[in-house]
């Protein structure tokens, strides 16, 4: 066990956990930030996507000891009032069915659009390809990313 100081959603948090613990479980079990989801545990589905210094990463494969002073943003911290353009676009297109993968989808989309605010359809598909949606909302996700890109 070791003590780690983490910068999460603009707040400094201390946790005492095994240094191999993936950030996913630090967020969920130790900090009650349960918006980040467990899907596969091997970085294949994207449900656990968070931002590390603004880049989308899979939190299930990121040990707490590797974070250092990097800034973590989770779905809970993406916007103040749930009004990030990507979140708003998700609502506009009424994307979610079961909803379980959507936090990860949104985090991937938000990081992607920051670097590429005017993507082509193909670029959107490539960027979102690591996030599985078992309900199959892909066409709506693509439309929502396009809508968000117009507002960014």
């Amino acid at each position, binding site marked *: *066990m070791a003590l780690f100081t983490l910068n999460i959603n603009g707040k400094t948090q201390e946790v005492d*956990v*095994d240094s*191999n*613990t*993936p950030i996913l*479980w630090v967020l*969920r*079990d*130790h900090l*009650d*930030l*349960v*918006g*980040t*989801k*467990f*899907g*596969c*545990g*091997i970085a*294949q*589905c994207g*449900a656990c996507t968070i931002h590390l210094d603004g880049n989308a990463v899979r939190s299930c494969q990121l040990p707490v000891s590797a974070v250092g002073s990097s800034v973590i943003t*989770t*779905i*809970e911290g*993406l916007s103040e009032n*749930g009004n990030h353009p990507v*979140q708003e676009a*998700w*609502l506009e297109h*009424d*994307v*979610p*069915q*079961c*909803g*379980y*993968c*959507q*936090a990860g989808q*949104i985090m991937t989309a938000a990081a992607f659009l920051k670097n590429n605010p005017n993507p082509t*359809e193909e670029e*959107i*598909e*490539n960027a979102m*390809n*690591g*996030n*599985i*949606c*078992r*309900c*199959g*909302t*892909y*066409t*709506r996700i*693509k439309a929502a990313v396009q809508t968000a890109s117009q507002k960014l």
Partner: protein
Amino acid sequence: MTTVNTKLDRRSFLKVSALAGGGMMLSFSWLAGCKPTPEEELGLPKEWFELNSYIKIGENGAVTLYSPNPEFGSNVKTSMPMILAEELDTDWKNVFVEQADFYPERFDRQFTGGSQGIRMGWRPMRTAGATARALLVNAAAQTWNVPSTEITTSAGILEHKASGKKAHYGEMASLAATLEVPEEVQLKDVNDFKIIGNSKKNVDGENIVTGKPLFALDHRVEGMKYAAIVHPPAFGMRLKSFDKNSVSGMHGILDVFPISVFKDDYTRNSFDTTTFPEIVAIVGNSTWEVMQAKKSLKVEWENAPETSFQMAGWGGNTSSVSIPAGLENSSVHKARMAEYSQKPGTILRRDGDPEGAFKKAAKVIERTYSAPFLAHNTMEPMNCFADVKGDKAVIYGPTQAPEFIMGTLVQALGIPRENIQINLARMGGGFGRRAYSHHLVEAALISQKIQAPVSMVYTREDDMSAGVYRPAYSATYRAAMDENNNLLALHVKAGGIPESPIHANRFPAGAIDNYLAESWDIPSNITIGAFRAPRSNFIAGAEQSFLDELAEAMGKDPIEFRLELLKRAETNPVGENNDYLPQRYASVLELVREKSNWNSPQPNVSRGVSAYFCHNSYVAEVVDTVIKNNQPVVESVYAAVDCGIVVNPDAARNMGEGAIVDGIGNAFFGELAFENGTPTKTNFDKYRMIRHKEAPKKIEVHFVDNGEEPTGLGEPLFPPVFAALANSLYKATGKRYYEQPFAPQLEMQNLKM
């Protein structure tokens, strides 16, 4: 207007002052599509007045509607309250929706499955809404001393036009709650619907996009422990022993013990499909710690002998069910299915003289189709929160079927039914998997043993390798034709491991003079269960691929050919038990022909069509593919659907789009194989799921507007996709696709998948 008798459904009108078990009302949310502005926002009232099980109204006019069915993504939590709100005649923006707990004394059929939520809920929801409205009208009539027949309602306002009196529902709610429930109420005319048929946003949308705790796995209480399970590595194996000491020194590990889901003398119900009834539980202080211990636990497994148990059937009869011994292999499965498809099966239907027709046929076409086991792979793995202390249990878990697991919980825990509260969590997908809810029993047993609240979760590997899978299937179709390519007879023989996919009385039965349907099945110890459109999800692909090939052999347009058969079934049906309506079947084919511009496709596009009837609904689909950069790309999918009245059109389209994506994914990639009883894929690195790049570039879902009562929607768009895709790929590549998944064959044709 229709008059309905409220006595048919008294339990919905029980007035109970408090919810059992205190409830875990996690899902309190505004319903409005966008955030209510301050002028619009009513806020929480000081007091709620309960008008019936589904509806309570606050003194300020706010309305709470209880959504009875578990939500797994099919939109019932929005759509079912829309039905209540319609007949209540309230303003949707004043509505809060709450997920009801499992409470069969108050709510009907709290089951999500079989695409029956809206169909079965239609009449009870409408009646409950109309009854509450009638109570409010009667309260106003009493207050204003005018006849109730002179009072009108609109968007939550009561009005007596002659006297100019007006009140909102909240002003009459306290009196209305004390009045006698009327024996008869009027339902609205379908043409007067204001909410039904007008798209409403998902009531949990804002909570989902902001990451609010909505799922059982998100639930946290003081003193809660975490648990993982260790199950046999193969079907056909069972627990022999384990060494607690191998993990007991690990940090954060509190306890390790075996649990058994069934007591020896328990008579199972038909939803008691439990993959491994005996497993080992590991309890600790965090998920990560119990997952680490799981890897280190030393366990000995042994081959299980043949076992049998008693199962209660729907009619009350109990039968003995046997589970064979052995470690099964997919290669052996395939060989056995091939063998069975050549042997005589059980005859399910025979019309005319099929054998005679085949003897005199000038030409016989015979094709065999097959598909593997499939894992449901819900994005949220099986999990459950349970808090069992003494003789009381609170279970908060993802289940499609609380009713069917309650008896299992009672016997496993030894706690009476009235002391067990099941609260319904939003599910991260279901697809049939969570109709089998032994994960609730496992969590409850773990909590009971440690006498503390626990959150139990499967790893993805557990979830995929301890599944209740879609069975493996095979179907052989034969057609007899005369020298002029007229269809003389059709013969289908289909089976599976361990169940047959055949629906003997569905189309094209009824359209062909000489028809034979045979069935077979091969026992297995691999657990199977409902998977989106059970049986239909395979047989539709086989049947509709075969009809495509027949149409081609006869030189006919595939839609025209189907319409000809349907015309025959309509005007001069063969046999008496045909379970579909030919006109409605034909209407979706006609609609998809129009919407897809069937007769003038885009240049370079290869298109295939398919149509199927299941879950009381009719669906026709056209798939357009192109080969781009040596890769098959699904360019467009057009669907025409007859599911009667559509309650929430945009959400209905969303689900239809999802079913199409799901079908294309499983047709291309879906496969779970077994070696020595062990699934060869246990996570998404090997089990290929459809992803963004493979999804259709465009999907259009069109509904037949016929004002019929609603029928199923979650499943019926899924089965026809397989053949529409296969038929389209045939046009693109010149090859037919008989074996699912299609990707390996496409790769052998040097296409990139």
